[in-house]
Protein backbone atom coordinates (compact mmCIF):
# COMPACT_ATOMS: atom_id res chain seq x y z
CA UNK A 1 0.00 0.00 0.00
CA UNK A 2 1.32 3.47 -0.93
CA UNK A 3 2.26 5.87 1.84
CA UNK A 4 -0.45 8.51 2.35
CA UNK A 5 0.28 11.98 1.04
CA UNK A 6 -2.30 13.56 3.34
CA UNK A 7 -3.06 12.21 6.78
CA UNK A 8 -6.03 13.53 8.71
CA UNK A 9 -6.00 12.39 12.33
CA UNK A 10 -8.92 12.87 14.70
CA UNK A 11 -9.63 16.31 13.39
CA UNK A 12 -12.38 18.41 14.88
CA UNK A 13 -13.45 21.95 14.06
CA UNK A 14 -15.41 24.19 16.40
CA UNK A 15 -16.48 27.71 15.50
CA UNK A 16 -17.13 30.47 17.96
CA UNK A 17 -20.42 32.00 17.01
CA UNK A 18 -22.67 34.59 18.56
CA UNK A 19 -24.84 31.88 20.07
CA UNK A 20 -21.89 30.00 21.54
CA UNK A 21 -19.63 27.27 20.29
CA UNK A 22 -20.64 25.39 17.17
CA UNK A 23 -19.00 22.06 16.44
CA UNK A 24 -18.91 21.63 12.69
CA UNK A 25 -16.66 18.57 12.44
CA UNK A 26 -15.56 15.88 14.89
CA UNK A 27 -13.35 12.79 14.81
CA UNK A 28 -12.39 12.97 11.16
CA UNK A 29 -9.66 10.54 10.23
CA UNK A 30 -8.70 9.86 6.66
CA UNK A 31 -5.61 8.92 4.72
CA UNK A 32 -5.32 10.13 1.15
CA UNK A 33 -2.91 8.23 -1.05
CA UNK A 34 -0.80 9.75 -3.81
CA UNK A 35 -2.50 10.01 -7.22
CA UNK A 36 -5.83 9.20 -5.69
CA UNK A 37 -9.05 11.04 -6.48
CA UNK A 38 -11.23 11.43 -3.40
CA UNK A 39 -14.69 12.98 -3.38
CA UNK A 40 -16.34 14.45 -0.32
CA UNK A 41 -20.09 14.17 -0.53
CA UNK A 42 -22.79 15.04 1.94
CA UNK A 43 -25.81 17.21 2.48
CA UNK A 44 -25.48 20.96 2.33
CA UNK A 45 -23.97 22.48 5.45
CA UNK A 46 -22.45 19.27 6.76
CA UNK A 47 -18.93 20.62 6.68
CA UNK A 48 -17.39 19.63 3.35
CA UNK A 49 -15.95 23.06 2.65
CA UNK A 50 -14.75 23.26 6.23
CA UNK A 51 -12.81 20.01 5.78
CA UNK A 52 -11.39 21.10 2.43
CA UNK A 53 -10.27 24.42 3.92
CA UNK A 54 -8.50 22.51 6.65
CA UNK A 55 -6.57 20.48 4.08
CA UNK A 56 -5.81 23.66 2.16
CA UNK A 57 -4.54 25.23 5.37
CA UNK A 58 -6.89 28.19 5.00
CA UNK A 59 -8.09 27.39 8.51
CA UNK A 60 -6.58 25.37 11.34
CA UNK A 61 -8.36 22.59 13.26
CA UNK A 62 -9.42 23.06 16.86
CA UNK A 63 -8.44 19.50 17.64
CA UNK A 64 -6.43 16.78 15.95
CA UNK A 65 -3.80 17.22 13.31
CA UNK A 66 -3.46 17.25 9.51
CA UNK A 67 -0.26 16.15 7.84
CA UNK A 68 0.91 16.65 4.30
CA UNK A 69 4.00 14.66 3.35
CA UNK A 70 4.40 13.88 7.06
CA UNK A 71 4.55 17.55 7.93
CA UNK A 72 1.87 19.37 9.85
CA UNK A 73 -0.28 21.66 7.72
CA UNK A 74 0.18 25.06 9.30
CA UNK A 75 -1.08 27.25 6.50
CA UNK A 76 -1.85 27.34 2.80
CA UNK A 77 0.85 26.71 0.23
CA UNK A 78 1.18 26.41 -3.54
CA UNK A 79 1.77 22.65 -3.36
CA UNK A 80 -1.91 22.42 -2.40
CA UNK A 81 -3.72 24.34 -5.12
CA UNK A 82 -7.36 25.21 -4.62
CA UNK A 83 -10.13 25.56 -7.18
CA UNK A 84 -12.61 27.75 -5.38
CA UNK A 85 -16.34 27.21 -5.34
CA UNK A 86 -16.85 30.55 -7.12
CA UNK A 87 -13.76 30.47 -9.37
CA UNK A 88 -12.24 33.56 -7.66
CA UNK A 89 -10.49 34.94 -10.69
CA UNK A 90 -9.17 38.44 -10.17
CA UNK A 91 -11.42 40.67 -12.27
CA UNK A 92 -8.73 43.20 -13.11
CA UNK A 93 -6.53 40.63 -14.81
CA UNK A 94 -7.01 38.77 -18.06
CA UNK A 95 -7.30 34.99 -18.00
CA UNK A 96 -3.67 34.82 -19.03
CA UNK A 97 -2.57 37.15 -16.25
CA UNK A 98 -4.63 35.27 -13.69
CA UNK A 99 -2.87 32.04 -14.53
CA UNK A 100 0.46 33.82 -14.84
CA UNK A 101 0.17 35.12 -11.29
CA UNK A 102 0.16 31.53 -10.06
CA UNK A 103 2.78 30.26 -12.50
CA UNK A 104 5.15 33.10 -11.73
CA UNK A 105 4.87 32.43 -8.04
CA UNK A 106 5.71 28.74 -8.38
CA UNK A 107 8.23 28.70 -11.22
CA UNK A 108 9.30 32.35 -11.49
CA UNK A 109 12.58 31.82 -9.65
CA UNK A 110 14.01 29.04 -11.77
CA UNK A 111 12.52 29.73 -15.21
CA UNK A 112 12.70 32.55 -17.72
CA UNK A 113 9.80 34.46 -19.19
CA UNK A 114 9.40 32.40 -22.39
CA UNK A 115 9.08 29.22 -20.37
CA UNK A 116 6.57 30.79 -18.00
CA UNK A 117 4.52 32.03 -20.93
CA UNK A 118 4.57 28.56 -22.41
CA UNK A 119 3.33 27.08 -19.15
CA UNK A 120 0.41 29.50 -18.97
CA UNK A 121 -0.48 28.85 -22.59
CA UNK A 122 -0.31 25.10 -22.06
CA UNK A 123 -2.55 25.25 -19.00
CA UNK A 124 -5.18 27.31 -20.81
CA UNK A 125 -4.89 25.06 -23.81
CA UNK A 126 -5.56 22.04 -21.63
CA UNK A 127 -8.97 23.36 -20.61
CA UNK A 128 -9.60 24.63 -24.17
CA UNK A 129 -9.47 28.24 -23.15
CA UNK A 130 -6.55 29.29 -25.33
CA UNK A 131 -8.87 31.27 -27.59
CA UNK A 132 -9.92 33.57 -24.75
CA UNK A 133 -6.57 34.06 -23.04
CA UNK A 134 -6.59 37.80 -23.22
CA UNK A 135 -10.17 38.31 -22.18
CA UNK A 136 -11.17 39.57 -18.78
CA UNK A 137 -13.25 37.38 -16.46
CA UNK A 138 -16.36 39.49 -16.95
CA UNK A 139 -16.11 38.90 -20.69
CA UNK A 140 -16.40 35.11 -20.50
CA UNK A 141 -19.14 32.74 -19.37
CA UNK A 142 -19.44 31.05 -15.99
CA UNK A 143 -18.21 27.71 -17.30
CA UNK A 144 -15.24 29.39 -18.96
CA UNK A 145 -14.32 31.13 -15.73
CA UNK A 146 -14.46 27.84 -13.92
CA UNK A 147 -12.15 26.33 -16.53
CA UNK A 148 -9.65 29.15 -16.12
CA UNK A 149 -9.81 28.58 -12.37
CA UNK A 150 -8.97 24.93 -12.99
CA UNK A 151 -6.18 25.89 -15.38
CA UNK A 152 -4.73 28.20 -12.77
CA UNK A 153 -4.69 25.41 -10.22
CA UNK A 154 -3.22 22.82 -12.59
CA UNK A 155 -0.60 25.22 -13.91
CA UNK A 156 0.96 25.30 -10.47
CA UNK A 157 1.66 21.57 -10.80
CA UNK A 158 0.49 21.04 -7.27
CA UNK A 159 1.00 17.79 -5.41
CA UNK A 160 -2.57 18.04 -4.28
CA UNK A 161 -5.47 19.66 -6.01
CA UNK A 162 -8.36 20.72 -3.82
CA UNK A 163 -11.62 21.53 -5.54
CA UNK A 164 -14.71 22.89 -3.83
CA UNK A 165 -17.70 22.06 -6.00
CA UNK A 166 -15.81 23.07 -9.11
CA UNK A 167 -18.84 22.59 -11.33
CA UNK A 168 -21.51 23.45 -8.81
CA UNK A 169 -22.85 26.52 -10.55
CA UNK A 170 -22.94 25.09 -14.05
CA UNK A 171 -25.66 23.60 -16.22
CA UNK A 172 -25.68 19.87 -16.84
CA UNK A 173 -24.15 19.97 -20.32
CA UNK A 174 -21.24 22.23 -19.46
CA UNK A 175 -20.78 20.26 -16.33
CA UNK A 176 -20.46 16.97 -18.22
CA UNK A 177 -18.00 18.48 -20.69
CA UNK A 178 -15.86 19.84 -17.88
CA UNK A 179 -15.96 16.55 -15.98
CA UNK A 180 -14.64 14.79 -19.05
CA UNK A 181 -11.95 17.40 -19.47
CA UNK A 182 -11.01 17.06 -15.84
CA UNK A 183 -10.86 13.30 -16.12
CA UNK A 184 -8.44 13.67 -19.01
CA UNK A 185 -6.33 16.25 -17.23
CA UNK A 186 -6.12 14.18 -14.07
CA UNK A 187 -4.97 11.18 -16.07
CA UNK A 188 -2.33 13.29 -17.79
CA UNK A 189 -0.93 14.97 -14.69
CA UNK A 190 -1.43 12.24 -12.13
CA UNK A 191 -2.35 14.74 -9.45
CA UNK A 192 -3.85 13.80 -6.14
CA UNK A 193 -7.30 15.30 -6.01
CA UNK A 194 -9.73 16.02 -3.20
CA UNK A 195 -13.04 17.24 -4.52
CA UNK A 196 -16.20 18.41 -2.82
CA UNK A 197 -19.38 17.65 -4.70
CA UNK A 198 -23.14 17.49 -4.35
CA UNK A 199 -23.54 15.34 -7.38
CA UNK A 200 -23.60 11.57 -6.99
CA UNK A 201 -22.91 10.78 -10.66
CA UNK A 202 -19.99 13.16 -10.66
CA UNK A 203 -18.56 11.51 -7.57
CA UNK A 204 -18.77 8.02 -9.07
CA UNK A 205 -17.50 9.12 -12.45
CA UNK A 206 -14.41 10.89 -11.20
CA UNK A 207 -13.38 9.31 -7.91
CA UNK A 208 -11.36 6.40 -6.69
CA UNK A 209 -13.00 6.76 -3.30
CA UNK A 210 -16.11 8.53 -2.19
CA UNK A 211 -16.12 9.83 1.36
CA UNK A 212 -19.66 10.25 2.59
CA UNK A 213 -20.23 12.60 5.47
CA UNK A 214 -22.98 12.48 8.06
CA UNK A 215 -25.19 15.49 8.64
CA UNK A 216 -24.00 18.30 10.82
CA UNK A 217 -23.67 19.63 13.36
CA UNK A 218 -20.67 17.65 14.52
CA UNK A 219 -20.46 15.88 11.19
CA UNK A 220 -18.00 13.10 10.63
CA UNK A 221 -17.20 10.49 8.02
CA UNK A 222 -20.11 8.06 7.67
CA UNK A 223 -18.93 5.59 5.06
CA UNK A 224 -16.30 5.34 2.37
CA UNK A 225 -16.93 3.63 -0.96
CA UNK A 226 -14.07 2.45 -3.13
CA UNK A 227 -14.95 2.91 -6.80
CA UNK A 228 -13.21 0.15 -8.70
CA UNK A 229 -13.99 1.16 -12.25
CA UNK A 230 -11.23 1.09 -14.84
CA UNK A 231 -9.80 4.27 -16.21
CA UNK A 232 -10.14 6.00 -18.58
CA UNK A 233 -13.83 6.14 -17.83
CA UNK A 234 -16.34 6.87 -20.51
CA UNK A 235 -19.62 8.30 -19.34
CA UNK A 236 -21.63 6.69 -22.12
CA UNK A 237 -20.26 3.22 -21.50
CA UNK A 238 -20.60 3.65 -17.77
CA UNK A 239 -24.23 4.57 -18.14
CA UNK A 240 -24.82 1.00 -19.27
CA UNK A 241 -22.50 -0.52 -16.68
CA UNK A 242 -24.28 -2.25 -13.80
CA UNK A 243 -21.32 -1.59 -11.52
CA UNK A 244 -21.76 2.15 -12.06
CA UNK A 245 -25.41 1.84 -11.11
CA UNK A 246 -24.34 -0.18 -8.09
CA UNK A 247 -22.00 2.52 -6.78
CA UNK A 248 -24.63 5.14 -7.38
CA UNK A 249 -27.11 3.12 -5.43
CA UNK A 250 -24.74 2.81 -2.48
CA UNK A 251 -24.22 6.56 -2.31
CA UNK A 252 -27.89 7.35 -2.77
CA UNK A 253 -28.74 4.83 -0.09
CA UNK A 254 -26.40 6.60 2.31
CA UNK A 255 -27.52 10.10 1.47
CA UNK A 256 -31.24 9.60 1.21
CA UNK A 257 -31.96 6.76 3.60
CA UNK A 258 -29.33 6.85 6.27
CA UNK A 259 -28.71 10.60 6.31
CA UNK A 260 -32.05 11.89 5.18
CA UNK A 261 -31.96 15.59 5.61
CA UNK A 262 -34.41 16.73 8.21
CA UNK A 263 -36.57 19.49 6.88
CA UNK A 264 -34.65 22.62 7.76
Amino acid at each position, binding site marked *: MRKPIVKIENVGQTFNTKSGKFTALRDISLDIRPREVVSLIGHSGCGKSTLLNLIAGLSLPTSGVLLCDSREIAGPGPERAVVFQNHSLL*PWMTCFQNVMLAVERVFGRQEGMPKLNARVAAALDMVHMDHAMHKYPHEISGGMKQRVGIARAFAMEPKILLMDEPFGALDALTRAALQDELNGVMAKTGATVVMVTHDVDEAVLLSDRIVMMTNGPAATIGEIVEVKLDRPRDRLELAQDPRFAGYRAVVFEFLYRKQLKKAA
Partner: protein
Amino acid sequence: MSAVAILKLAEPPARAEPEPVKTAAVATERSVTVERSEQAVTPPVREGLGEGGREMLRRIIPPVFGIVLMIGIWALVAIKSGNIPGPGKTWAAARVLFADPFYQNGPNDQGIGWNVLSSLQRVGIGFGFAALVGIPMGFLLGRFAFMNRMFDPIISLLRPVSPLAWLPIGLLVFQKADPAATWTIFICSIWPMILNTAQGVQRVPQDYLNVARVLGLSEVKVITKILFPAVLPYMLTGIRLSIGTAWLVIVAAEMLTGGVGIGFWVWDEWNNLKVEHIVIAIFVIGIVGLALEYMLLTLAKRFSYEAR
Protein backbone atom coordinates in the same frame (compact mmCIF):
# COMPACT_ATOMS: atom_id res chain seq x y z
CA MET B 1 -8.33 76.41 -18.29
CA SER B 2 -10.84 74.23 -20.04
CA ALA B 3 -13.51 76.62 -18.91
CA VAL B 4 -11.72 79.32 -20.73
CA ALA B 5 -11.54 77.20 -23.82
CA ILE B 6 -15.26 76.47 -23.74
CA LEU B 7 -16.08 80.11 -23.31
CA LYS B 8 -13.79 81.09 -26.14
CA LEU B 9 -15.44 78.66 -28.46
CA ALA B 10 -18.81 80.01 -27.54
CA GLU B 11 -17.75 83.54 -28.10
CA PRO B 12 -18.01 84.36 -31.85
CA PRO B 13 -21.75 83.84 -32.54
CA ALA B 14 -23.65 86.71 -31.06
CA ARG B 15 -27.15 86.74 -29.58
CA ALA B 16 -28.87 83.60 -28.50
CA GLU B 17 -25.69 81.54 -28.22
CA PRO B 18 -24.65 81.54 -24.58
CA GLU B 19 -26.43 78.18 -24.22
CA PRO B 20 -23.53 75.76 -24.31
CA VAL B 21 -21.83 77.49 -21.44
CA LYS B 22 -24.91 77.49 -19.32
CA THR B 23 -25.98 73.96 -20.14
CA ALA B 24 -22.90 72.81 -18.40
CA ALA B 25 -23.36 75.10 -15.46
CA VAL B 26 -26.93 74.01 -14.82
CA ALA B 27 -26.19 70.34 -14.89
CA THR B 28 -23.48 70.52 -12.24
CA GLU B 29 -25.51 68.72 -9.58
CA ARG B 30 -26.31 65.74 -11.77
CA SER B 31 -22.99 64.70 -13.11
CA VAL B 32 -24.36 61.86 -15.23
CA THR B 33 -26.52 64.01 -17.44
CA VAL B 34 -23.59 66.27 -18.03
CA GLU B 35 -21.86 64.13 -20.60
CA ARG B 36 -25.00 63.68 -22.60
CA SER B 37 -25.96 67.31 -22.70
CA GLU B 38 -22.43 68.34 -23.56
CA GLN B 39 -22.12 65.94 -26.43
CA ALA B 40 -25.55 66.73 -27.65
CA VAL B 41 -25.39 70.47 -27.74
CA THR B 42 -24.54 70.95 -31.40
CA PRO B 43 -25.90 68.13 -33.65
CA PRO B 44 -29.69 68.72 -33.69
CA VAL B 45 -29.25 72.23 -35.01
CA ARG B 46 -27.48 70.81 -38.04
CA GLU B 47 -29.45 67.61 -38.47
CA GLY B 48 -32.96 68.81 -37.90
CA LEU B 49 -35.32 65.83 -37.65
CA GLY B 50 -33.17 62.96 -38.91
CA GLU B 51 -33.20 59.33 -37.77
CA GLY B 52 -31.42 59.71 -34.47
CA GLY B 53 -32.35 63.35 -34.54
CA ARG B 54 -35.63 62.75 -32.76
CA GLU B 55 -33.89 60.90 -29.95
CA MET B 56 -31.37 63.71 -29.80
CA LEU B 57 -34.14 66.26 -29.60
CA ARG B 58 -35.74 64.42 -26.73
CA ARG B 59 -32.49 64.60 -24.86
CA ILE B 60 -31.81 68.18 -25.79
CA ILE B 61 -35.15 69.83 -25.26
CA PRO B 62 -35.44 69.48 -21.48
CA PRO B 63 -32.01 70.93 -20.67
CA VAL B 64 -32.42 73.70 -23.21
CA PHE B 65 -35.81 74.42 -21.73
CA GLY B 66 -34.25 74.56 -18.27
CA ILE B 67 -31.59 76.97 -19.40
CA VAL B 68 -34.02 79.23 -21.16
CA LEU B 69 -36.16 79.23 -18.04
CA MET B 70 -33.18 80.09 -15.90
CA ILE B 71 -32.13 82.92 -18.17
CA GLY B 72 -35.70 84.16 -18.24
CA ILE B 73 -36.02 84.23 -14.48
CA TRP B 74 -32.64 85.82 -14.24
CA ALA B 75 -33.62 88.55 -16.69
CA LEU B 76 -36.87 89.11 -14.79
CA VAL B 77 -35.12 89.38 -11.45
CA ALA B 78 -32.58 91.74 -12.98
CA ILE B 79 -35.31 94.03 -14.32
CA LYS B 80 -37.22 94.02 -11.04
CA SER B 81 -34.28 94.56 -8.73
CA GLY B 82 -32.41 97.08 -10.80
CA ASN B 83 -28.97 96.43 -9.32
CA ILE B 84 -28.46 92.83 -10.48
CA PRO B 85 -27.04 92.76 -14.01
CA GLY B 86 -29.19 90.95 -16.57
CA PRO B 87 -28.02 88.31 -19.06
CA GLY B 88 -27.32 90.87 -21.79
CA LYS B 89 -25.15 93.07 -19.66
CA THR B 90 -23.31 90.06 -18.24
CA TRP B 91 -22.69 88.67 -21.70
CA ALA B 92 -21.24 91.93 -22.87
CA ALA B 93 -18.98 92.07 -19.83
CA ALA B 94 -17.92 88.47 -20.41
CA ARG B 95 -16.89 89.27 -23.95
CA VAL B 96 -14.63 92.01 -22.73
CA LEU B 97 -13.28 89.87 -19.93
CA PHE B 98 -12.50 86.88 -22.07
CA ALA B 99 -11.00 88.92 -24.86
CA ASP B 100 -7.86 88.93 -22.74
CA PRO B 101 -8.08 86.49 -19.87
CA PHE B 102 -4.35 86.42 -19.27
CA TYR B 103 -3.36 90.04 -18.87
CA GLN B 104 -1.14 91.08 -15.98
CA ASN B 105 -1.17 94.54 -14.40
CA GLY B 106 0.73 93.95 -11.19
CA PRO B 107 -0.07 91.43 -8.47
CA ASN B 108 -3.60 92.63 -7.69
CA ASP B 109 -4.91 93.07 -11.20
CA GLN B 110 -4.65 90.00 -13.36
CA GLY B 111 -6.84 88.34 -15.96
CA ILE B 112 -9.50 85.88 -14.93
CA GLY B 113 -7.48 83.10 -16.52
CA TRP B 114 -4.63 83.66 -14.08
CA ASN B 115 -7.05 83.75 -11.19
CA VAL B 116 -8.60 80.43 -12.14
CA LEU B 117 -5.20 78.88 -12.72
CA SER B 118 -3.83 79.93 -9.36
CA SER B 119 -6.93 78.59 -7.62
CA LEU B 120 -6.49 75.33 -9.49
CA GLN B 121 -2.86 75.23 -8.51
CA ARG B 122 -3.69 75.64 -4.83
CA VAL B 123 -6.30 72.93 -5.07
CA GLY B 124 -3.81 70.72 -6.89
CA ILE B 125 -1.09 71.12 -4.30
CA GLY B 126 -3.32 70.81 -1.24
CA PHE B 127 -5.11 67.91 -2.75
CA GLY B 128 -1.86 66.24 -3.84
CA PHE B 129 -0.49 66.32 -0.32
CA ALA B 130 -3.81 65.04 0.99
CA ALA B 131 -3.59 62.10 -1.39
CA LEU B 132 0.00 61.46 -0.42
CA VAL B 133 -0.93 61.28 3.25
CA GLY B 134 -4.53 60.12 3.07
CA ILE B 135 -4.26 57.12 0.79
CA PRO B 136 -1.49 55.29 2.69
CA MET B 137 -3.28 56.24 5.88
CA GLY B 138 -6.49 54.75 4.53
CA PHE B 139 -4.64 51.53 3.71
CA LEU B 140 -3.34 51.35 7.26
CA LEU B 141 -6.72 52.01 8.81
CA GLY B 142 -8.38 49.48 6.54
CA ARG B 143 -5.79 46.78 7.11
CA PHE B 144 -5.29 47.04 10.87
CA ALA B 145 -8.29 47.12 13.16
CA PHE B 146 -6.19 48.60 15.92
CA MET B 147 -5.27 51.62 13.83
CA ASN B 148 -8.85 51.97 12.76
CA ARG B 149 -10.09 52.10 16.35
CA MET B 150 -7.26 54.38 17.32
CA PHE B 151 -8.02 56.99 14.68
CA ASP B 152 -11.77 56.65 14.68
CA PRO B 153 -12.47 59.18 17.46
CA ILE B 154 -9.99 61.67 16.00
CA ILE B 155 -11.46 61.51 12.52
CA SER B 156 -15.04 61.57 13.77
CA LEU B 157 -14.28 64.68 15.78
CA LEU B 158 -12.37 66.60 13.12
CA ARG B 159 -14.26 65.68 9.99
CA PRO B 160 -17.40 67.77 10.64
CA VAL B 161 -15.31 70.89 11.28
CA SER B 162 -15.38 73.38 8.42
CA PRO B 163 -11.93 73.48 6.88
CA LEU B 164 -12.06 77.27 7.09
CA ALA B 165 -11.78 76.97 10.83
CA TRP B 166 -8.30 75.64 10.19
CA LEU B 167 -7.29 78.69 8.18
CA PRO B 168 -5.99 80.72 11.15
CA ILE B 169 -3.90 77.74 12.22
CA GLY B 170 -2.46 77.63 8.72
CA LEU B 171 -1.72 81.36 8.82
CA LEU B 172 -0.05 80.93 12.17
CA VAL B 173 2.09 78.00 11.10
CA PHE B 174 3.03 79.16 7.61
CA GLN B 175 3.05 82.90 8.26
CA LYS B 176 1.81 83.46 4.72
CA ALA B 177 -1.60 83.55 3.09
CA ASP B 178 -0.90 81.33 0.12
CA PRO B 179 0.19 78.15 1.92
CA ALA B 180 -2.55 78.74 4.47
CA ALA B 181 -5.17 78.49 1.72
CA THR B 182 -3.50 75.36 0.43
CA TRP B 183 -3.55 74.03 3.96
CA THR B 184 -7.34 74.34 4.19
CA ILE B 185 -7.58 72.41 0.94
CA PHE B 186 -5.36 69.74 2.41
CA ILE B 187 -7.61 69.48 5.46
CA CYS B 188 -10.85 69.25 3.56
CA SER B 189 -9.48 66.75 1.02
CA ILE B 190 -7.93 64.34 3.41
CA TRP B 191 -11.03 62.96 5.14
CA PRO B 192 -12.85 61.52 2.13
CA MET B 193 -9.54 60.12 0.94
CA ILE B 194 -8.78 58.30 4.20
CA LEU B 195 -12.31 57.07 4.77
CA ASN B 196 -12.96 55.80 1.25
CA THR B 197 -9.60 54.08 0.95
CA ALA B 198 -10.06 52.42 4.33
CA GLN B 199 -13.52 51.26 3.38
CA GLY B 200 -12.19 49.88 0.10
CA VAL B 201 -9.51 47.91 1.90
CA GLN B 202 -12.04 46.48 4.32
CA ARG B 203 -14.29 45.45 1.48
CA VAL B 204 -11.72 43.49 -0.50
CA PRO B 205 -13.49 40.15 -0.92
CA GLN B 206 -12.12 37.37 1.26
CA ASP B 207 -11.99 35.19 -1.87
CA TYR B 208 -9.26 37.34 -3.39
CA LEU B 209 -7.28 37.26 -0.19
CA ASN B 210 -7.68 33.48 -0.08
CA VAL B 211 -6.27 33.29 -3.59
CA ALA B 212 -3.29 35.27 -2.36
CA ARG B 213 -2.86 32.96 0.62
CA VAL B 214 -3.05 29.79 -1.44
CA LEU B 215 -0.56 31.11 -3.95
CA GLY B 216 1.60 32.29 -1.09
CA LEU B 217 2.11 35.73 -2.65
CA SER B 218 4.60 38.07 -1.05
CA GLU B 219 3.26 41.10 0.80
CA VAL B 220 4.43 43.34 -2.07
CA LYS B 221 2.53 41.25 -4.61
CA VAL B 222 -0.54 41.18 -2.38
CA ILE B 223 -0.51 44.95 -2.26
CA THR B 224 0.22 45.59 -5.95
CA LYS B 225 -1.76 42.77 -7.55
CA ILE B 226 -4.70 42.41 -5.20
CA LEU B 227 -5.23 45.15 -2.65
CA PHE B 228 -4.42 48.10 -4.86
CA PRO B 229 -6.61 47.16 -7.85
CA ALA B 230 -9.43 46.10 -5.56
CA VAL B 231 -9.29 49.37 -3.66
CA LEU B 232 -8.73 51.63 -6.67
CA PRO B 233 -12.42 52.32 -7.40
CA TYR B 234 -12.98 53.34 -3.77
CA MET B 235 -9.89 55.52 -3.87
CA LEU B 236 -11.15 57.26 -6.97
CA THR B 237 -14.47 57.91 -5.24
CA GLY B 238 -12.52 59.48 -2.39
CA ILE B 239 -10.57 61.59 -4.82
CA ARG B 240 -13.69 62.73 -6.57
CA LEU B 241 -15.38 63.76 -3.33
CA SER B 242 -12.20 65.51 -2.20
CA ILE B 243 -11.80 67.51 -5.37
CA GLY B 244 -15.45 68.53 -5.20
CA THR B 245 -15.18 69.90 -1.69
CA ALA B 246 -11.76 71.36 -2.35
CA TRP B 247 -13.18 73.42 -5.19
CA LEU B 248 -15.99 74.58 -2.93
CA VAL B 249 -13.65 75.55 -0.15
CA ILE B 250 -10.99 77.31 -2.19
CA VAL B 251 -13.34 80.13 -3.13
CA ALA B 252 -14.14 80.87 0.47
CA ALA B 253 -10.54 80.48 1.60
CA GLU B 254 -9.27 82.88 -1.04
CA MET B 255 -11.88 85.46 -0.09
CA LEU B 256 -10.30 85.43 3.33
CA THR B 257 -6.64 85.28 2.34
CA GLY B 258 -6.49 87.52 -0.72
CA GLY B 259 -3.81 87.23 -3.39
CA VAL B 260 -4.52 85.87 -6.84
CA GLY B 261 -7.36 83.39 -7.19
CA ILE B 262 -10.93 83.15 -8.31
CA GLY B 263 -12.27 83.54 -4.77
CA PHE B 264 -10.27 86.65 -4.19
CA TRP B 265 -11.30 87.95 -7.58
CA VAL B 266 -14.97 87.62 -6.64
CA TRP B 267 -14.36 89.60 -3.49
CA ASP B 268 -12.34 92.20 -5.33
CA GLU B 269 -15.02 92.70 -7.95
CA TRP B 270 -17.56 93.10 -5.16
CA ASN B 271 -15.43 95.88 -3.74
CA ASN B 272 -15.32 97.42 -7.20
CA LEU B 273 -19.09 96.87 -7.41
CA LYS B 274 -18.78 95.02 -10.71
CA VAL B 275 -21.62 92.66 -10.02
CA GLU B 276 -21.70 91.33 -13.58
CA HIS B 277 -18.19 90.03 -13.01
CA ILE B 278 -19.38 88.18 -9.95
CA VAL B 279 -22.06 86.51 -12.01
CA ILE B 280 -19.46 85.55 -14.58
CA ALA B 281 -17.26 84.18 -11.80
CA ILE B 282 -20.14 82.03 -10.60
CA PHE B 283 -20.44 80.49 -14.04
CA VAL B 284 -16.70 80.01 -14.33
CA ILE B 285 -16.47 78.33 -10.94
CA GLY B 286 -19.34 76.07 -11.87
CA ILE B 287 -17.82 75.10 -15.18
CA VAL B 288 -14.40 74.40 -13.74
CA GLY B 289 -15.98 72.30 -10.97
CA LEU B 290 -17.95 70.44 -13.57
CA ALA B 291 -14.87 69.84 -15.69
CA LEU B 292 -12.97 68.47 -12.69
CA GLU B 293 -15.82 66.15 -11.84
CA TYR B 294 -16.13 65.01 -15.42
CA MET B 295 -12.41 64.33 -15.70
CA LEU B 296 -12.41 62.21 -12.58
CA LEU B 297 -15.52 60.33 -13.62
CA THR B 298 -13.85 59.48 -16.90
CA LEU B 299 -10.77 58.37 -15.03
CA ALA B 300 -12.84 56.27 -12.65
CA LYS B 301 -14.62 54.62 -15.54
CA ARG B 302 -11.30 53.76 -17.12
CA PHE B 303 -10.11 52.02 -14.00
CA SER B 304 -13.29 50.28 -13.00
CA TYR B 305 -13.38 46.61 -13.81
CA GLU B 306 -16.78 45.07 -14.39
CA ALA B 307 -18.33 43.37 -11.41
CA ARG B 308 -18.04 39.62 -11.48
